[in-house]
């Protein structure tokens, strides 16, 4: 009997070990914070003015405490009629994107901003992400526990051997644990699972290039252009409203501004590897490509197209259309490209995997047509069944998935 108990104990200990190793952090995002990060964070900060005004205390600054609830969903009309909105436009120079948020969502965002406190400056000792530290800690703990369990099991078996000897029960000499078939079997199983897990993950990762950040022919900083200087993404990447490609701007688009802007006078630019970048020299490179003579102020040399290195690559069997997402879906560039306005050199933010696409299609809501108010994209007026369901209260909103956005031939043809 005791032999079976021994095996059971060992199996239990091993299972515990595997379970602990493979457990991962599960987090539940706060409502307001998630909404803020998804919708507002590109242009607003809670504590300081950015592209738009700081959000902390917004409700107290505004004409009345409910003004913001009206504003967020009616930017396009209010910016021309509302005096306070006009003032904002004059001050910040750019109109806010119109959203389609519910009142409680807006309230959650503003509550979050009001209660937001600046994070304590990280000290040298605690630098790094605590979440990762935790899992490492759990891993070490598990390992320690497993070793202790192993030692205890060995101690247990030695003690039993001693007591058996004392009782005069003759047992065969127990095999050492490294030759114990049960242990070896367990070890092989664990290695097999781990190996399989790693291999499959590696295979899935083949061809995915998250964080890909190649060196470009010109050190072009999105942080300087889109971040510091607040140039609209669509000024250069206009194709994202009309075409499947967002389009890297042609050299003449760069020259629209850089005919006048000959030198870089902003904060020092530092490469990832710590080397500093001479912004003015990079502008000179652009002139070389354009064939522009900044002294004579004319194009006097033959130009040469810039061979940028493409960062975001999709396989050939995927059809992706920028205008579908930007113009129709009203997605922010940052949703897929990350905090581009903070990137000195662009890197691939998302892994661009199919699961990542599908998740968003499951969660994102379409700008569904409201038959009563006439709001939303009138194209969706043909979805009779959903209109009926919404009217009957069976449905509160329509996701991309609902209108077929996760079907194969929406992207593969």
């Amino acid at each position, binding site marked *: 009997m005791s032999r079976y108990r021994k095996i059971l104990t060992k199996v239990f200990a091993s299972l515990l070990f595997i379970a602990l190793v493979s457990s991962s952090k599960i987090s539940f995002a706060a409502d307001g914070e998630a909404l803020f990060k998804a919708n507002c964070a590109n242009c607003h900060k809670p504590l300081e003015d950015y592209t738009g005004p700081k959000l902390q205390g917004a409700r107290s600054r505004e004409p009345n405490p409910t003004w913001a609830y009206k504003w967020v969903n009616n930017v396009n009309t209010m910016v021309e009629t509302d005096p306070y909105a006009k003032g904002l436009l004059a001050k910040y120079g750019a109109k806010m994107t119109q959203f389609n948020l519910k009142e409680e969502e807006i309230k959650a965002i503003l509550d979050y901003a009001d209660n937001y406190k600046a994070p304590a400056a990280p000290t040298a000792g605690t630098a790094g992400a605590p979440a990762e530290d935790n899992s490492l800690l759990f891993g070490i703990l598990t390992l320690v526990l497993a070793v202790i369990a192993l030692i205890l099991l060995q101690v247990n078996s030695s003690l039993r051997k001693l007591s058996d000897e004392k009782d005069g029960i003759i047992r065969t000499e127990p095999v050492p644990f490294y030759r114990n078939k049960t242990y070896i079997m367990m070890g092989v199983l664990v290695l097999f699972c781990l190996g399989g897990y790693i291999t499959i993950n590696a295979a899935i990762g083949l061809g995915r290039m998250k964080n890909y950040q190649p060196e470009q022919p010109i050190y072009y900083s999105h942080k300087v252009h889109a971040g510091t200087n607040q140039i609209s993404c669509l000024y250069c990447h206009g194709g994202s409203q*009309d075409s499947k490609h967002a389009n890297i701007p042609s050299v003449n688009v760069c020259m629209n501004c850089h005919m006048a802007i000959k030198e870089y006078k902003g904060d020092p630019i530092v490469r990832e590897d710590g080397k500093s970048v001479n912004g003015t020299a990079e502008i000179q490179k652009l002139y070389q490509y354009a064939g522009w003579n900044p002294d004579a102020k004319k194009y006097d040399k033959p130009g040469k*197209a810039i061979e940028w290195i493409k960062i975001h690559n999709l396989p050939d069997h995927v059809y992706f259309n920028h205008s579908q997402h930007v113009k129709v879906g009203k997605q922010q560039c940052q949703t897929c490209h990350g905090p581009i306005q903070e990137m000195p050199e662009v890197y691939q933010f998302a892994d661009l995997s199919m699961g990542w696409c599908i998740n968003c299609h499951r969660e994102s809501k379409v700008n569904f047509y409201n038959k009563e108010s006439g709001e939303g*994209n009138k194209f969706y007026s043909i*979805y009779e069944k959903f209109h009926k369901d919404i009217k009957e209260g069976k449905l509160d909103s329509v996701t991309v998935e609902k209108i*077929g956005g996760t079907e194969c*031939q929406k992207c593969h043809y």
Partner: protein
Amino acid sequence: MSNKKYWQSFGELNESDAFKKAAKDEFKENLLPLEDLDDGLLNAKAPRRDFLKYLGFSTAAATIAASCEMPVRKAVPYLRKPDDVIPGVANYYASTYVNEGDVVPVLVKQRDGRPIKIEGNEASAITGGGTSAQAQASVLDLYDTTRLRYPMQHDGKDFKEVTSFDAFDKLIATAMGAVAAKPTVILTSTITSPVTQQIITEYLAKSPAGSKHVQYDAISYSGMILANQACYGKKGLPSYHFDNAKVIVSLGADFLGTWLSPVEFSGQYAKTRRITGEKPEMSRHIQFEGALSLTGSNADDRYLHKPSQTGAIALALLAKLGGAVSAAAINDPAVAKGVDAAAAALNANKGAGLVVCGSNDVNIQIIVNAINEAIGANGKTINWAVTSNYRQGIDSDIVKLTEEMNAGAIGALLIYESNPVYTYYDSKKFADGLKKVPVTVSFNGTMNETTELCKFSIPSNHWLESWGDSEAKTGFISLQQPTINPLFKTRPFQASLLKWSGNATDYETYFKTYWTAKTGSADNYDSALQSGLIQPVAMPVGTATFSSGPVTEAAAKIAAVKGGNYEVVIYQKVSIGSGKQANNPWLQETPDPISKVTWDNYAIMSPAMAKAVLALDVIGSQYQGDGYEVHPEKPTVKLTVNGKSLELPVLILPGVHPSVIAVALGYGRESADKNRTSEYIGKSAAGAGFNAYPLVGFDGTGFSYTGAAEIAKTGNTYPLGQTQVHGSSESRPVIYETSLAKFIANPEQVCAEPNEERAKLIPFGGTEYRKDATIYPDLMEEKPGIKWGMSIDLNTCTGCSACVVACTAENNVSVVGKTQVMRAHEMHWLRIDRYFTGDMNNPDVVFQPMMCQHCDNAPCENVCPVAATNHSSEGLNQMTYNRCIGTRYCANNCPFKVRRFNWLDFNGADSFPDNQNPLLGVDLNDVTLQMNDDLTRMVLNPDVTVRSRGVIEKCSFCVQRLQENKLIAKKAEDPTLIRTVKTACMQACPTHAISFGNVHDKESDVYKIRFVDQKHRNFYVLEQLHVLPNVSYLAKIKNSDRHVTNEKEEGEEEKHEGAKTAEKEHA
């Protein structure tokens, strides 16, 4: 079960053993020799070594794959982006397809700077947006690898590049200076361009005395032109108005396929064949012909005769219509009856009849003119106020020129868009003459039989790279504009002539000046370029004065015509035509609508003649029939016409006169040095068919495409790649048709059979398949929004195959080559099934375009083990290539046989570059290399995935177009824009037989056709299988007194009793 039999092959007709076997084993592919391993893996021959091999290979492959770095991809934007170009968005430019006098106004789809698709220009008053297979395919010619890349001079041994145009111009000036005493001749095909005509005239004015412009058409219409000159005093062709005709009688004119302007005539014809309204009306079409043509297969009544009888029939018809001629009695009672029927119909519809004739004999055409005069067609269906300029060549001109060349009387010969060494009936004489002309310059864009014998070659631009214009009909102008910079160092013919005549203006400026002056202002010119058209608001209609003078003499000459024992009909195929585009793989692989053969021409003969000549009884003996039909190898015969012989494979086809053999032109292209055919003429043209031009006769005034023939059995065989029997519906009823009279009497009768089938549900409490014939829930009802549907009108579909080529171009459909076609591996997403029915010797023909039916209850979806094919909420049967593992269960389970499997790597999608090479000559033809050349691949549609080996593909309803259209509608926030969507096949169709749209939209064409306007004719193929197709068809109506309905004729014998029992067993 239908009582009327529709059959595609003799095997199906006879229910032969081979047919049943073929129907049972759909994939004609032997299994891999894995059966040897069936006695267990361990007992198999060398499992351990195989295992180690596989293990080693997969480890190595995995290592390589894992250590491969991702390739660095570049994104290179414009230096200065043109304003009207947005990378990723296609632009459409109006232009005109012009080829040897064929004119089709088109829109060119240009994506990121390269033309990738031709669409019909719907604003054209002539074609109304229709196109032809050849126009659709011409975009591939732009990327033809055999195009000449620079000007060249022949140094006696071979062509040498001339480094610059200036150097070439100097060479020409010197050469021309040396022959200034002799006249210069410009030899072209018909020129419909006013600007080019003017440039030629200006050039000739500065050339030595006696210089002239000779227009030579590969397929001559000079008989008609001369007859019109004799009767009306006008040396030209009138405009025909088939749309105004209630009775159309054609004496061998294939006006829907190849005669004069088929795109225009198909559109007009369809207007008279479309059934609309409460009181349906349609024209009556009677065809007299020797062999089965595309037009003949659409006719209501067809009468077979020897070609030598054409004149006699015309005379008899004229006599019956009251003409003052004496006509000999027609011996064949069936034809005599036909003449009576035609005369009666024409008499009953004076002023609304039209008689056309395909003969190139002046005398016959004079009689036809007299007939049209007698029935009042002049000024009604024949319009002399607007003349047609499609063909202008006069046969005697080219014959005279050949004599002059041989006599050494010509100083210089400039050849443009013409290839007489191939197309001239006496090729050797022309070639000899060419050698005697001191200066010969070819402007042809490719190295053809004529160019290779010239001393100079200065290739002209492809039409997609050129400025140009075409006045297809007087007053109806269609402009050409370049849609891509010239790919090679080529120069337009017109630019060269301007330069050589000392005109300093460049061609583009000349062209612009000309049309700015004609249109009145620069703005008008711009808007004309934008629409591509300059045309009057309404077409003027007028008559010409008819003189009956020549009729008597013509009648006397016709009476003297004697026929042969056997007679040959030399015709053109709708795909290859005269053979100029013979190196176009899309056209070569398009099955001929009638014979369903690809990549070849052949001698078509009737079963009766095959029995007499080859002792092969395909109808009477099922073993002989199978022996002939199952194997690609066909017996050959030696055909002798006018003393010239040709050995051709035999294709047995019903509906051909028992004494007639038909041979197509346009094949057998061959370079003077046979080893260079592939290099010069092209990989696709090399080895495709036999040259039938030498069989053409010359009777002193015109070329004759008929003649007495002798045939002899050879005992040899030759393989033909025929597609018809590949996808069989196994004699299940798929076609419904009736006669006009019966349809008017009882519109519901035509689709009574499917209705009866549906009625069988009533005892179980239901009437609809969708709700009551399935245990599955109705998924489509749950899905709101769009539901795509297509409707095809079998009445207006003529079988012209423009849609097949359009589909190939739009969807990057692979070309597989003859070897693979013979193995039933063709990849066409859209095929046109041809069914025969009725009288064995003179059957009726029905064409049925067949593509994926996008069944809502699709049999293919249920059997896919990896869910690579599934249903979308919009009713599309989706195919996901990257998920497909190639089990082919879906293809096996598809009742429509529309799924195609990539048996080989036809697209070079394999990661190893030369993997196709070992298969060349064995499994793959050279055409695979041609299609995978970097240049040719520029034609690929970037929005459609190129499929690799081992996956299934099929019609997607052009999902890329649907998505694009939906996006446009979403951006404009206007759901009504969905009504503008067009699939590629629908856009290409010259008769608008295909409708497509959102069935949930009550304003859409498809909804109206299915549920309102045409509900009586609406049926779904194999509806009784409860597969719920999303493609519906409209039953065919024939305007004939004969019995054409599906139900049995009263008193008809039970001829196929045994066969029917077999059918039931099948079902």
